[in-house]
């Protein structure tokens, strides 16, 4: 049986952001989505680095979109998850849910 690729924490965030945004997923919208949901600033470079890694793993695909003046006439690159990407995200979710189940209440600094 083929082994599914694993996701790091940030890779999972990027995958989830792409799924949440849908068709308008590109660098700026993905980083904005992560920043709004997590409250932390995200480096565009790390978003693109992660996107390249996810594309190499076959979890997302990209197409070149339209150019706009505020982008200096440069085209957007739209991302979408592949069926394998969706499967990996679902597997990761199930694994995390299993891990959370049965955990003692987390209070303060002690478990």
């Amino acid at each position, binding site marked *: 049986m083929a082994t*599914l690729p694993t996701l790091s924490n940030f890779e999972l965030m990027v995958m989830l952001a792409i799924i949440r945004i849908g068709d308008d997923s590109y660098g*700026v919208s993905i980083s904005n989505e992560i920043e709004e949901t997590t409250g932390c600033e995200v480096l*565009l470079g790390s978003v693109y680095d992660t996107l*390249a890694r996810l594309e190499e793993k076959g979890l997302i695909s990209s197409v070149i979109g339209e150019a706009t*003046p505020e982008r200096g006439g440069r085209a957007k*690159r739209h991302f979408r998850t592949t069926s394998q990407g969706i499967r990996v995200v679902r597997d990761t979710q199930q694994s995390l849910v299993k891990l959370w189940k049965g955990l003692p209440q987390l209070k303060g600094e002690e478990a």
Partner: protein
Amino acid sequence: MRIQPAPAVATWFLKLFCSSAEDESLIGDLLEKYRQGHGSFWYWRQVGAIIFLRLGRNVRRLSVGAAAMPMRHAFTVLLVIAAFWAVLLTDIWMIFLIGIAGGVISGVLMFLLGNGVNERGKFGAQINTDHPVPNHPGISIHHIPVEGAVGMLFVFGTVFIFGAGVPAVREIFLLTIPLGVLALGILVYWHKHHSVKIEALDLHKQ
């Protein structure tokens, strides 16, 4: 609406490192985000991070591991030729120096090339995830590279064969052989205690 120009020098730097067609969208994204109300410092920081990450990715993609084996072989052949040349010149000190320098350099080289590049980027042991332990997801065997030790034995063996014909070198071997046995013992001990590691939470392995 007047479009705010981005720092030209930073953009020039960015284009220097990110020049492919796909990078155009990255530069466009950066400009778009900059014009959403960020300052020059933010822009420079983003450019610095992009360049740093890009260089890191390119270094990771360099297949140093693939070149390791031919380099080891070439180095071993070089040492054999040097040892042969030294014996022909009957220069005892040359043989001695080649033995020590060759051993040290080949050891360092083999360690760096054998361990420096692997899948997870850890240093100290090669990781082999191609052969996970059957029926035990999350556990994989980590192999310590023993080919380095074999290579060193070959190098020292060659020097030994040539050097044994010289009486003074035979005396040197009285010291180096026990040291070699001791080093071998340390290597075996280390290998025994580091040969298997458990990877926690590797949840996708079936």
